[in-house]
């Protein structure tokens, strides 16, 4: 297995993708794999200050499934993607970056984001930093 690390691009902020982001992030920490997360698209709003507290967005076409999934996650005491990411960033090895294009378009600055956001970076920075990493797109 590669020791060069992982990079995740999260571009859609629907609930099930955020669950997956949390699980993959915690797993990377468990395995000691360095991880960079690049937040863009509709996921960006969840990384604004207190953005994660807003009502989750379900993927269109799956209302009943998402209802069942949400109840199941509560039953098994899933910690929530934000908590998993926050813990992972604190434990080290995980860096979360916000997309500069989206930030510019929405007129958002570093101070507008969740404290877990390391920096606002462009695609060039992210790609160079992740050139030797496996990249997962969610």
């Amino acid at each position, binding site marked *: 297995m590669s020791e060069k690390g992982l990079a995740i691009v999260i571009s859609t902020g629907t609930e099930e993708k955020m669950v997956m982001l949390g699980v993959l992030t915690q797993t990377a920490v*468990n395995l000691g794999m360095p991880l960079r997360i690049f937040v863009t698209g509709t996921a960006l709003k969840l990384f604004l200050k207190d953005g994660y507290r807003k009502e989750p967005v379900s993927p269109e076409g799956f209302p009943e499934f998402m209802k069942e999934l949400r109840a199941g996650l509560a039953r098994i005491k899933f910690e929530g993607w934000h908590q998993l990411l926050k813990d992972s960033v604190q434990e080290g090895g995980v860096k979360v970056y916000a997309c500069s294009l989206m930030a510019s378009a929405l007129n958002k600055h570093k101070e507008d984001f969740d404290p877990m956001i390391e920096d606002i970076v462009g695609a060039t920075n992210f790609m160079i930093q992740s050139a030797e990493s496996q990249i997962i797109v969610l």
Partner: protein
Amino acid sequence: MTTMNVDSRGTACPGPITDLIRAYKKAQNGDMIVLVANDPGVVPDSKAWCERTKNVFVGSKNIEDYFEITIQVTGKRA
């Protein structure tokens, strides 16, 4: 040699492996870790973790509605 018991029943992926690693951090080479969990992926996940970290997957048992996994700690660096 110490046996460490880790009860991760009720947690879901990646909770059992997170709990296993918490115990592993306190363990010494030669110690045994017995992990119980009911997440359905815990056996293959534990095996893969052992292979990656050079610990020994001793075995697993399916007991009622949970799995019991025994790991020998051998991957700690001196």
